[in-house]
């Protein structure tokens, strides 16, 4: 069975989201979106069937909000949003994330990214924030971010019922230990090694010497990803699906 990188990530995301009642996925996030659709499908197949509320920003169909853009943030505050995805131009070992820029002196940074979006708020409030960044390099995973769009969990007395549960990249899945404020290497994707992860990570992290391989989707899951899930995510991400799942339509 030949499983693509994207299929593995979608499957991994779905597993991370399965415990949730309510998930939202931000803009420009086809893989998290597809993973959330797969998790919703799994929840619906449970006996008794369980409902996973899903909002894919940018989708008209998978969006059941009716109070404007603020609703996502209010929903998070109310405790009605269990999981969200955040990325970052830089992520450091204490899970600080930077969506603003690198180098130079703020605001005249050498590189400028779009901006912090909702990160400076959702990172504090959503219980299961999944850091998702495909590129796994020392350029992205740095010792210390140049700008903190949203700080990782810390013991500073700030109201923070939420935070990151881990970081998913093209190479591996790190869990985040909030008490120790460190990433823990949990699984390495098939075809990659712990050594490769170390070589490409700019911060220290924990992990057993013997790290398991990230689980592959079984045939049923793979058929779902390639068929109905690919077709559903195509509404919001037609170009992604045309590239990655050309046979889905």
């Amino acid at each position: 069975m030949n499983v693509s990188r994207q299929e593995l990530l979608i499957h991994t995301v779905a597993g991370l989201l399965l415990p949730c009642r309510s998930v939202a996925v931000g803009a420009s996030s086809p893989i998290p979106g597809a993973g959330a659709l797969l998790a919703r499908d799994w929840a619906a197949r449970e006996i008794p069937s369980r409902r996973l509320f899903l909002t894919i920003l940018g989708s008209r169909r998978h969006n059941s909000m009716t109070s404007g853009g603020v609703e996502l943030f209010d929903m998070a505050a109310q405790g009605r949003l269990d999981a969200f995805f955040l990325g970052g131009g830089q992520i450091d070992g204490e899970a600080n994330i930077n969506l603003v820029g690198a180098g130079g002196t703020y605001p005249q940074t050498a590189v400028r990214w779009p901006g912090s979006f909702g990160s400076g708020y959702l990172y504090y409030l959503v219980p299961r924030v999944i850091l998702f960044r495909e590129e796994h390099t020392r350029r992205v995973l740095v010792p210390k971010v140049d700008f903190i769009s949203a700080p990782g969990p810390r013991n500073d007395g700030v109201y923070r019922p939420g935070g990151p549960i881990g970081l998913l990249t093209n190479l591996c899945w790190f869990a985040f230990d909030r008490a120790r404020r460190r990433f823990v290497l949990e699984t390495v994707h098939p075809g990659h090694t712990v050594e490769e992860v170390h070589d490409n990570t700019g911060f220290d992290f924990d992990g057993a010497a013997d790290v398991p391989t990230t689980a592959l989707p079984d045939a049923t899951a793979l058929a779902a990803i390639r068929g109905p899930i690919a077709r559903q995510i195509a509404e919001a991400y037609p170009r992604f699906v045309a590239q990655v799942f050309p046979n889905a339509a």
Partner: protein
Amino acid sequence: MSHDWLQGSADDLAARVPDGAKIAIGVDTAGVAMETTRALIRRGARDLHLVCAPMAGLAADLLIGAGCVATLETSAITFGEYGTAHRFHDALKRGAIKLMDATCPAIYAALEAGAKDIPFIPLRGLIGSDLAAHRPDWKVIDNPFGEDDPILLLPAIRPDYALIHAPYADRNGNLFIGRRRDLVLMAQASRQGALATVEEVRDVDLFSSEETAAGTLPAIYIASTAVAVRGAWPIGLGDHYEVDEAHFRRYAELARTADGFARYLDEFVHRRRQAAE
């Protein structure tokens, strides 16, 4: 139909915006008033304080590139999948604009405070971020209803005008906006109300049914309205038309350089060429 509330064009709306005004613009999915944006550039607006509610794309890049903007308050400037905001990046590097970097819910909450005309509103999050570190206009206080509970206060945002675009107005000047309640927030928070373009005016009364009424922005929040067919172009508008990807590619090429951007303005803003549908 007598539409004494209707102006001739988006340029009439832009004429109402004085230099130095605080202007709210919305996200690409909410109905962006691109024709009014171009009209602002044509009229040579200067020193605008642009409030992106809560982020923006092409409209912001155009206004910044054309030198209309003194202050930019936003959570992000992004074209999504359609390229990079070169004029924004260039202006930042040159120190040509004052940047007020925020996070989406902070701009929403500050606009909500504006719509309630309360001077400030508390918000969770933000404390310990560099966003807060660079915003001297935000204050951290001890929650007076808690103990050892620091919380951030945001000052209200009341723009002078909100620029919006909607599918249609009814005969009384009410706008159909559907679920895009960001437009309600932007209009309510603005002191003078919204400057609105619409694809068309329909001879209906949006308040005649509970369904259409629920998706209506009432005329009382609108300062001035004009018809602008394909007024969100090259951005899309809900069920009405899609984003013009080819035009975004063309923009991305030209806007890499100041010269190319000037040629873009000349062709698509001053000479008002719209790409064929």
